[in-house]
């Protein structure tokens, strides 16, 4: 049983993560391990899906969950392309692309804030978190 499945209280889904391979499920697992708040995310993979199928899966997920924030991994990726098409008909939804773990952790900890505002704050934290050490 996964850590997320063991949580007794299901939090409402506040964001969808759409990404390549198992990136989304993996980064949700990391957030859950650190904060116990993994259930606020819904992970979607683009593996084996054409653009239309990715877009349809995302639209269905937004409708089912009421989420207004979508995170993607890569600016040029097919998930990002699909979300940008989707945004044309959903002006209240925010897309943040190029995510990292710091960004998601910050978002996860702001569970009392409006999710779109939280996503924009988290974006700045995530961006600032990449630092080089050593050589």
């Amino acid at each position: 049983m996964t850590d997320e499945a063991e949580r007794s209280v299901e939090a409402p889904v506040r964001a969808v993560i759409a990404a390549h391979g198992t990136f989304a499920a993996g980064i949700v697992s990391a957030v859950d391990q650190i904060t116990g708040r993994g259930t606020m995310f819904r992970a979607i993979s683009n593996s084996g899906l054409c653009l239309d199928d990715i877009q349809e899966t995302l639209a269905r997920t937004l409708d089912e969950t009421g989420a207004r924030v979508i995170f993607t991994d890569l600016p040029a990726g097919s998930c990002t392309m699909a979300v940008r098409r989707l945004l044309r008909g959903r002006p209240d939804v925010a897309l943040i692309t190029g995510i990292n773990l710091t960004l998601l952790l910050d978002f996860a900890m702001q569970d009392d804030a409006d999710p779109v505002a939280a996503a924009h704050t988290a974006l700045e934290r995530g961006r600032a978190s990449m630092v080089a050490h050593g050589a």
Partner: protein
Amino acid sequence: MPIALYRIDDRLIHGQVVVGWGQPLELRFIVLVDDEVAASEWEQELYRMGVPPEMTVHFFSVEDAVVALPELQADARPGLVLAGDIDTMMRLVEQSGHTIAAVNLGGIHHSPGRTPRLRYVFLTAAEESGLRAIERLGVEVTAQDVPNARPVPLDELLTSTLDS
């Protein structure tokens, strides 16, 4: 340098194209051949924003691509020609006067009526005939999603199943 890759990929510009192939081939331009995208400024802007600043994207209908191709093929910088479906690439090959030696099948994903051939290739009977028609024009057709994967020859592709 001639065009580095002629690719069929139903996702058009995406991670595999821009990063997976774009970086090792040091691509400086992408020629996106698609009648619908060529007619839509909004779609073009969407794809243009997906590529890094050192890369230019040209958008053409098949008809206009045939006219532009000789100049693009003579460009000294590495480039990639991209079509979203087999029919578009077939029309381009047919009309471009034997200047295309090889076509890469990079991704045609699942939809009803398509038979799974590889993890990233699903084909209808008509699409398989289209690939054969491209081959009959003297073009080598292989399936390969990323540069370090093995190119799968057409004969092998059309007899393989996902389970094998």
